[in-house]
């Protein structure tokens, strides 16, 4: 087995543990924004799409990569915008002004 794979497994397992700890503390109240935010974050597949679109290998990979970049960018930009739009709405009781 290659070292890269072992390192990858390390990262995956530890990432999953940290994720479990962090995510299970998010209250029901914020589950929709949470899902929307993890969605935006998973737009990180943009990283792979960018390489595919820019490697200038042949027409097919450039095309596939470009469509992938469009799809991932929609998720990143749209996901962050809509998460923030949702969170902006969660308000505490207004302070009573006397």
């Amino acid at each position, binding site marked *: 087995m290659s070292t890269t794979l072992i390192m990858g497994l390390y990262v*995956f397992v530890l990432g999953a543990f940290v994720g479990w700890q962090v995510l299970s503390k998010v209250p*029901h109240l*914020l589950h*929709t924004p949470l899902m929307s935010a993890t969605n935006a974050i998973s737009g990180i*597949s943009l990283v792979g799409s960018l390489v595919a679109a820019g490697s200038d290998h042949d027409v097919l990979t*450039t095309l*596939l990569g470009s469509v*992938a970049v469009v799809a991932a960018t929609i998720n*990143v930009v749209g996901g962050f915008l809509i998460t923030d739009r949702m969170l902006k709405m969660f308000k*505490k009781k207004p302070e009573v002004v006397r």
Partner: protein
Amino acid sequence: MTTTDVVQLLYLAASALFILGLQSMGKADTARRGVRFAEVGMLLAVVGTLLHHEIISYHWIAISIVIGSAIGTAMGLFIPMVKMPERIALSHAFGGLAVALVGVSEYVRHGAHAPMLTIAAIGLEVFLGALTFTGSLMAFGKLQGVITGKPLTYPGQNASNLLALAVALAGVAYVVANPSAATVFYVVLGLGFVLGVLLVLPIGGADMPVVICLLNAYAGLAAAATGFALGNNVLIICGALDGGSGIILGLMMSKAMNRSFRNVVFGAVGSAPAAAAAAAGPGAAPTSSANVGSLEDAAAVLASARSVIIVPGYGMAVSQAQHVVRDLANALAAGGAEVRYAIHPVAGRMPGHMNVLLAEANVPYEQLFDLDAINDDFGSTDVAIVVGANDVVNPAAKTQPNSPIFGMPVLAVDQARTAICFKRSFNPGFAGIENELFTKPSTMMVLGDAKKSLAELVQAVKSEAKLAA
């Protein structure tokens, strides 16, 4: 320090910022800051990637980013909150598509001479990505009503799905052994597309929250597989986080329905009871024994209520009644009543659906209570107002062992002194089960469009208050 080192450090910073961002989402008052952290992380990761040595042409990248940003901005700014489950389903589809396409392009570029494990990762990536893509489109179609929300079942369904899964995995193994077998590779891709459709077909509308979580998990795992294929740690971490959030939320949702993950995915609940309801005939609903009240009756009951709990359900989202629900709560509070909201974890079509809608209507989040936090208080509550909720308030879950929802934790609306239920008609809910709450003597049914009825009720409550003053 080489460029590669810089790129890796940027990825590390991005990963830390993502985790920090999600941690800040644990509290409502720090959540927006969390989104900022994650945004900066994403920016660093993208900048780092653009320095990648394999990228030699920026032409198509620039065009694609502009197009994606334009569509993303439009979707982010203009999609109404009630369409949030549909939006999430669509974004899972985009995520799956991106991952599948990257996988295909990886295979085309490096397939013939990549190490075995890389090929295995690419195969899984393409399969999971394709499955997420079509599965999410199916979920979107069901939520939009383009495809029937009823579970579609046929004999041997689970067996044939398992067979398709087994063939796909065998295909991946074959491609690992013979990396140049492109046909088999594309068969795996095709099986992913087909299986995505087949897996979501048998799932009923009320189980949508779990399916959305599950698709979220698939999307995450697909991204993690991409990370393994590219040897990219930030992708692996994000995949683990995204997959983890899908699994955690899915488990919470299934627990709130007292069902196992497996039962939701393979159980096709809703088909049998729906058939039974159909056999009983549409006119068999117990309209005779139900206590149907007018809005004046409801206003009169509310006039003397000191404590009120509002229970929203999917019906509130359908009729977009969240603003008028808030108006009612304000009118009651102005009359001196204590008003709270009880939110069942699976009310609506996705986790936290009701909370977002009520937040949109400016309801302060301190008034929103989880099932566990409020359920014991119904007994000492004057009036419980049910707006478009059905199965989550069905006492059969506690009393009838043969009911399909038996054992599911439900809101104890039947314990309140009076329950006022707003409902479009006497049709059974998504699980197709009769609800004895609606025929209890202490329950008053108000039939019709919830938004319209509630708006009139607000006026009635206000004039009642004026009379009293």
